[in-house]
């Protein structure tokens, strides 16, 4: 049962990711990316990582992609017609890089053994995650928040300079 659900979700995820890359209409790209994120959230939930699943939907599907959609709709991004490729090397380079990443991921995952995780397999992962974040990983946590703040200020500076 669980395996069947996993394969179904994985198939939908891969398919929607392909549509997100290949479709010519930018709005459809964003929408199918939402479907991909939902599928990822489902796989998180099936691993017992319920907090991650919720956060995935809340942050990626709910907040970031709404902004993407907002920008695409506001700027009225044109529907890309099929044949024009301004830089042909992009395609070759992209395919090469994607193949390299896929191969690397494949070798990594096939060499993976079951490891003991710090988080409880089932039950309340939120508390455990919180303790890890403000306990052992406090420095990294704070560093990430500073990086995000810097990005925010940088974006403001860039926008203000135009006027």
């Amino acid at each position: 049962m669980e395996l069947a659900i996993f394969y179904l979700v994985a198939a939908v995820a891969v398919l929607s990711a392909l549509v997100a890359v290949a479709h010519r209409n930018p709005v459809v790209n964003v929408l199918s990316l939402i479907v991909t994120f939902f599928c990822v959230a489902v796989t998180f939930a099936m691993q017992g990582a319920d907090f991650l699943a919720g956060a995935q939907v809340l942050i990626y599907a709910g907040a970031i992609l709404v902004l993407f959609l907002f920008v695409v709709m506001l700027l009225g991004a044109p529907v890309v017609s099929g044949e024009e490729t301004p830089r042909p090397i992009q395609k070759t380079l992209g395919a090469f890089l994607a193949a390299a990443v896929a191969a690397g991921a494949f070798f990594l995952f096939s060499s993976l053994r079951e490891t003991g995780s710090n988080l409880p397999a089932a039950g309340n992962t939120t508390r455990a995650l919180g303790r890890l974040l403000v306990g052992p990983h406090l420095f990294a946590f704070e560093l990430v928040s500073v990086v995000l703040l810097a990005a925010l200020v940088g974006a403001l500076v860039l926008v203000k300079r135009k006027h």
Partner: protein
Amino acid sequence: MWAEIAISGLKLAVIAGMLLTVVPVMTWVERRGAAFIQDRLGPNRVGPWGLLQPVADAVKLLFKEDVTPAHVSRGLYFLAPAVAVFVAASTFIVIPFAKGEGIQVFGVPLRGLIVAPDLNIGVLYLLALSSISVYGIVLAGWASNNKYSLLGGLRSSAQLISYELAMTLAVLGVLLASGDLRLTTVVEHQAKLWNAVPQFLGFLVFLVAAFAETNRLPFDLAEAENELVAGYHVELSSMKFAAFMMSEYINMTTVSALATTLYLGGWQLPGIAIPDGWLGLVLSFAVFMAKVGFLLWLFVWVRWTLPRFRYDQLMRLGWKGLIPLALLNLLWVSVALAQGWL
């Protein structure tokens, strides 16, 4: 196993039935309430006090011609109302409607009138679903391929993103105080004192943000009829339009139920212990629905009392008013918790 599935199905049926009943009742309350506030009579021809008016409305909408304009983006045009209703209705499975201790159905404990009692991330689930509720409106706006619709959709997405921040920050205070994402724990934590008392600021921010999140006046900029005709649903007719109407009322009910659960003590009465068993179930359900009913009336009351905001005023209120207030509330709760006052 089968008994548990049957119980979940029963709970789903009860709650879905209740949700779909709230919609016609609320349309009636809204129209009669508006008439009352404006010193008119309102619909009073169909049935006693016009009570059958919603039925007449539904029949009219069902039999109207379903016009699909030639220039719409077809798939998304049909998908948008479905998304709106689906998201609105599926938020309900984590809200505890009533107490259910000491009740056994088919030999399995009932564990309260809540569809998913084992979901550890109740509040997170609700916030996640409310954050994707914007897609229904945005898609309707974009797929209609009409400038008024598009503007309505854009306004609504900007508005929802802004007010979601304030809402989430306000909810964080409640989570800090109760220490769990599970809504049943949040309710039990308020046995002595409702969260609305120590966190009045947070409650206020939550309520204002709730009006914005449900696109209700004074924040219904997405469908401002005097500038945008009807905003995102200009091109929708018949049941597609009705689907958006339904999702609006279901969303109002969800937000009211959430406000009751997070701030008004859920199904509890202050100072009165609700007994176990079936009597307790009925009593606590009545208490819960009374609180939700009051908040729903508040939605109608405010709609017909306050004029609509201007768009820049809306944004200023969200970013410069509500977010600092929510942060202040969070600070107060943290300090109070650290000092052991709460």
